[in-house]
């Protein structure tokens, strides 16, 4: 029973850790499938976390925070599209510029607005309740004492933030959009053979702008989850590399929604285990904290090293589409 409980607790933490990664990985999927390398996920998470928390505080409502967070990351995604699609800019360089801009802008504007060293005020303090609160599913309290089922349902499945459930709902939804709609077909086509798409009379630029719109919306949820739900406050650089982890998960998941989600869950699980195994004694030696925290990255490198079959990128990823060369 002890073991069962610790497994439930670890899986519970896995869901919390994986949520921002899933949103960001799905976001990256739309842009990369359309042929645009998205190293800027990190910056977009940060910008939506900041504007989400600021709006939630200003309006006293987490929903306004969600709206503002998503809008801000959409603006940044469109900026990215402007650089890479309209002006055929280098995807990685412009993405990196967005990351740098986001890190500086959030800290500077935050300091100007709130004078708290770039932090936003606490969203769950006194009369201010501008934060998403965990949701208790029906019958969770009644079932809590039932063995096994209570643990799985009341602890693991119930009691998460709304955004956690949304992340898992977004996976089949994104699959449907990408693989069962005309828009999805076009997104995939411009990432594989934009000339054919152009010949068929469909605008490559418009399709890529729309794909980055999807990216902006989805990645906005990731940022808002961090600042408006988990910590109830924005603090500078709080994205802490989650955008890059999501990108790794996307590649690891072969640019497909379900497998990307599984990769996110694996990374979330590794982090949960890393946190709980700190200070654990293994073969008579205390496991060093540095090793524990590096584990997800080491495993990513090992796994990407070719032990999971081939991961094939969209064909024209990173190449600007030029109609004809003169």
């Amino acid at each position, binding site marked *: 029973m002890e073991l069962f409980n610790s497994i439930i*607790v670890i899986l519970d*933490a896995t869901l*919390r*850790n994986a949520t921002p990664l899933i949103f960001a990985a799905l976001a990256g999927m739309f842009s990369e499938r359309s042929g645009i390398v998205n190293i800027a996920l990190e910056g977009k998470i940060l910008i939506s976390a900041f504007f989400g928390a600021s709006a939630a505080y200003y309006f006293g409502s987490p929903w306004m925070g969600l709206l503002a967070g998503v809008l801000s990351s959409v603006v940044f995604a469109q*900026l990215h599209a*402007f*650089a*890479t699609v*309209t*002006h*055929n*800019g*280098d995807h990685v*360089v*412009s993405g990196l*510029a*967005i990351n*740098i*801009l986001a890190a*500086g*802008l959030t*800290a*500077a504007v935050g*300091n100007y607005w709130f*004078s*708290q*060293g*770039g*932090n936003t005020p*606490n969203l*769950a*303090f006194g009369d201010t309740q501008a934060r998403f609160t*965990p949701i208790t599913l029906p019958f969770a309290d009644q079932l809590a004492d039932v063995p096994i089922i209570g643990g799985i349902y009341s602890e693991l499945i119930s009691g998460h933030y709304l955004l956690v459930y949304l992340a898992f709902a977004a996976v089949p939804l994104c699959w449907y959009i990408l693989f069962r709609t005309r828009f999805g077909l076009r997104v995939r086509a411009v990432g594989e053979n934009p000339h054919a798409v152009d010949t068929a009379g469909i605008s490559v630029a418009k399709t890529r702008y729309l794909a980055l719109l999807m990216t902006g919306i989805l990645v906005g949820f990731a940022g808002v989850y*961090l600042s408006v739900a*988990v*910590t*109830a*406050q924005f*603090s*500078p*650089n*709080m994205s*802490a590399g989650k955008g890059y982890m999501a990108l790794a998960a996307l590649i690891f998941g072969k640019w497909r929604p379900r497998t990307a989600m599984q990769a996110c869950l694996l990374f979330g699980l590794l*982090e*949960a285990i890393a*946190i*709980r195994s*700190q*200070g654990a004694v293994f073969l008579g030696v205390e496991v060093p*904290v*540095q090793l524990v*925290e590096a584990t997800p990255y080491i495993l990513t490198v090992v796994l990407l090293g070719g032990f999971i079959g081939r991961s094939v990128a969209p064909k024209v990823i990173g190449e600007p589409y030029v109609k004809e060369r003169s």
Partner: protein
Amino acid sequence: MKGMFKVAAATAVAGAVLVAGCSSDSEEEQSASFSPAVIYDTAGKFDKSFNEAVFRNGVEEFNADNEDITVSEFEPQNEEQREQGLRRLASNGNSPIVSVGFNFSSSVEKVAAEFPDTQFAIIDSVVDLPNVQSIVFAEHQGSFLVGALAAMASENGAVGFVGGMDIPLIRKFACGFEQGAKYVNGDIEYFENMTGSTPAAFADPARGSELAKSQISQGADVIFAAAGGTGIGVYQAAADEGIYAIGVDSNQNYLQPGTMLTSMVKRVGVAAYQTWEEGQSGEWEGGIKVLDLSAGGVDWALDEFNQDLIQPAWEERMAQIRQAIIDGEIEVYDYTTTGSCDI
């Protein structure tokens, strides 16, 4: 590529604004003969903790007490600006210059050697130069006190510690806390987690929240966070789960009233104030300055936000323990003397 230039230009402008914003303070007081200065750590002036304590109890007080003097301030935005900022303050004729935090060790060592006539002070670290005053605190004693209180308040008989970056200084907090908890309750269960091994570990509230939840799930019902900005996530998680948390450095009781049991205060602001005062009166001297419990350098915080949480019996016992440490009846082991916590 046109779009790229626009992005690059916007970035450059944002960067320029940042640089301009943080350097303007240092140029104000060039003419005055006595111009004290402070350089904060990258966590920022308003981190609700360490740096803010220097600002509120040091800078603001000193400015209020000396109407014609303004303490010059510098807030580095990244690692590279530490040394630049220090050099800039020194070349502007500021002295004494207080650098907040152990992260300044190498920068102070370098810049103080370049400006032998300027007085430097560094908090939480020791730099062995004649024109540097190294201010260190007996964190182990303060942590012992809050550890004792944590053990009194814990109903489950389990307490936790969340540290920021894994460095000897943070281990010193942890070790003192563990000793205090075990002094009150020998059978207490003790959990310890470090957030990471880079300075970023002091600014990761999401991970702080996750670490706290992990300890709570194992039974901990009082958690002490010595983790800078990461602590905010710990306090939030404690408030959400309805358990007690203990703040650090400045009095953080007000952050989550009702679930903040107490704070281990380090009077860094007072220390900075004293340094400037000594500089003003000409009594300043270099060397190591240890501020322990008896000197009022560290303590546990009791104010209107946590008064209702502290039972009278606990308060009485805390006063006894506090006196016993001052009198030397309780000897708190200092992690940094041997680099281990064998208690």
